[in-house]
């Protein structure tokens, strides 16, 4: 392999992995506060199609980015209202959000689907994604608000008893996660592709979810994990190009397989599980009145 080829591959890995970093770091913050949002795939698709349509209609990148973010705020806001105020089951609600997002984005994008657009330079977003991981790692471990987020995810009853607003904290982390997913979608339709096609996120939302567990809820591990997962996907194409005969499905399976192995590893030991997973994850919070 020549140097050029290696640099080329690294470049592709860099470009293709960024959506995983965005969606993954958003979900990490959401889960740190004790909420499991399985709606990433739906949020990404709606973010992608909203940005795309706005760009086609207005030609303005700022508007398209802004509306894409707004779509994430609205959708994750609805999710937050359902699971926090109406206390619906987080898993069922998250799945519903994904299914809803897949359908909504397909409907919205139907007319303008094939329209060609000028893509944005992905490197801005790549730099931002790195800064974001740094920011989240710092925020969670060093700031008081970050500590509150962890406390809420660790034991929401204690956090409430100490005077913290569990619901408000979770609203903020859910919406942060939603916006990050929209950005991941925006990146895919505006920088990576750039175009719109139904279901174009191709399961990245699920990989991002797996990634959070794979990273055992730690931001820096998430970044490393994202590039491992992204690298495996790209390797598939290049290995095929140089004639290695492994079925593509084998590579598609890798992120999930790796996640299951990590899950088994951390669950095999109660202490490790207790120290890595937020203890209140997926448990609804009910104020006792």
């Amino acid at each position, binding site marked *: 392999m020549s140097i050029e080829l290696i640099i080329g591959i690294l470049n592709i890995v860099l470009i293709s992995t960024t959506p995983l970093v965005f969606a993954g770091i958003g979900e990490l913050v959401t889960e740190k506060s004790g909420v499991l949002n399985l709606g990433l795939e739906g949020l990404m698709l709606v973010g992608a199609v909203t940005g795309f349509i706005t760009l086609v209609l207005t030609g303005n990148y700022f508007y398209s980015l802004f509306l894409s973010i707004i779509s994430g705020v609205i959708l994750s806001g609805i999710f937050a209202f359902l699971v926090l105020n109406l206390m619906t089951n987080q898993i069922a609600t998250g799945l519903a959000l994904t299914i809803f997002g897949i359908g909504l984005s397909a409907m919205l994008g139907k007319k303008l689907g094939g329209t060609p657009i000028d893509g944005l330079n992905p490197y801005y977003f790549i730099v931002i994604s790195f800064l974001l991981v740094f920011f989240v790692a710092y925020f969670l471990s060093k700031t*008081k608000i970050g*500590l*509150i987020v*962890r*406390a809420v995810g*660790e*034991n929401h*009853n*204690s*956090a*409430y*008893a*100490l*005077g*913290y*607003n569990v619901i408000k904290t979770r609203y903020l982390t859910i919406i942060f996660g939603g916006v990050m997913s929209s950005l991941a979608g925006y990146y895919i339709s505006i920088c990576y592709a750039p175009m719109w096609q139904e279901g174009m996120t191709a399961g990245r939302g699920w990989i991002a979810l797996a990634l959070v567990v794979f990273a055992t809820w730690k931001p820096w591990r998430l970044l490393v994990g994202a590039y491992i997962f992204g690298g495996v996907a790209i390797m598939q194409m290049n290995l095929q190009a140089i004639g290695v005969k492994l079925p593509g499905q084998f590579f598609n399976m890798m992120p999930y397989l790796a996640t299951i192995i990590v899950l088994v590893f951390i669950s095999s030991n*109660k*202490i490790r599980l*207790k*120290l890595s997973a937020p*203890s209140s994850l997926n448990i609804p919070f009910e104020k*006792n*009145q």
Partner: protein
Amino acid sequence: MQSIVEFKNIFKSYPGVIANDDVSFNIEEQSIHAILGENGAGKSTLVKILYGHVKPDSGEILINSDLAIINSPSTAKNLGINMVFQHFSLFESLTVAENLILGMNENISLTKLKDKSKTICDKYGFNLNLNSPISSLSVGQRQSVEIVRSLLNNPKILIMDEPTSVLTPDEISKLFKIIKNLVKDGLTVIFISHKLEEIINLSDYVTIMRNGKVVSTISTQNENPETLGYKMLGYKVSEVKHESNINFSQEIFNIKNLSTQSKDPFTINLNKIDLSLKKGQIFGIAGVAGNGQKELMEILLNENDYEFSGDIFFKDLNINNLSTFQRKSLSISYVTEERLGHSAVPEMSLSENIFLSMNHKSEFKKGDFINFEKINSYASDVIKNFNVDTPSYHVKAGKLSGGNLQKFIIGREIMSNPQLLILSQPTWGIDAGSEAFIKKTIVELSQKGVSIIIISHDLDELLEVCHQISVLYEGSLSNPLNVEDINIAKLGKYMGGLFD
């Protein structure tokens, strides 16, 4: 002196219970004011209302003669009210420092926090390592963290909900010294307890509550445990009669050199436990919570294949590897600590709950189907024989009060004619009437030749019922003491780990 808190006509009801019924009384500034009552008398609800944790249906609270609307814990903290909870509100995976920061109203740097907490620790004699995670601390140390966390906010009023229930006698006297010093420095302490002697030793005033109502608020000066107890219960509970000096001969259950080597920091390792139980004997395992009771019960039940070394014999049969149901088939019965969710399924009816515990017995089955006739008649027998107050066996277990459900569960196990009955916290959190009934039942059962093991944190209960008591301390079990020769001083030493 001036009143710092005034409760005015507080009323709070939950479905089926009135927790606080027209509660009014005043708390004087810079005093120790105890609230006394049985479990379920409404003490906890009242202080949770003061702390903004629970909303009253009606009524007012005045702080320093001003009407205060306290609708969340954070408003309470802004008014200078802090609370130390009965079940600690600490975050296990976070460090002491992080837990302290979370309790502070203001933002504070780590160095400043260290200075501030050091001042408090030195002044009142706490000993904290800020960098250790909570999970590595003992129960007493955890309570210190809770108290220091409250004090960091310079509170005017400190509420302590049953602070002594998890402490050794030694730790209790240390805590009382600290509380008295705090009050000297200007704090008002509201102290909840159902232990009469503690209240007389510590507090200036006491408000006695019964069934959600205030019976009276009095100075503790002229009271003794008996007069207070009488006021608390409203009637005298009959003492359990016990024939002592029985000669037990036939050994029925035997633990030899039982140890565990778990690496989980959240559990206590058991250390060479020996125990011998005779036919008809009641054996108590005392000790402060969190000293290995959970782990020991886990091994006795064998629900989760808890790993251990050593041997357990039931009538000379090694039962180490027998499953829970196999053990039950040998006529060993269990009553676990958690009534709802472990001993009984709250969403299922009483008769269904009978079947869940008895399905190793073929008489409750018709082939692969449930024999409902049989379990229904069994359930109604339990309800009748054990004074369970319920309209029928179709009622869901979760609808019964704690005392009634406990009577039902214990009745269910006793009716299956066990030769060995193992109970964990049999009277925890239930009303005095049910408690007396259960104690009487246990004693009568032993007189019929059934051997009984009781694991309990409630010393009075064990002293009243058992023939022999051992103390569990950090996974080690003390030598057995005959109840007749026990004195509280010795027991206190044992509970602090100083065995003979």
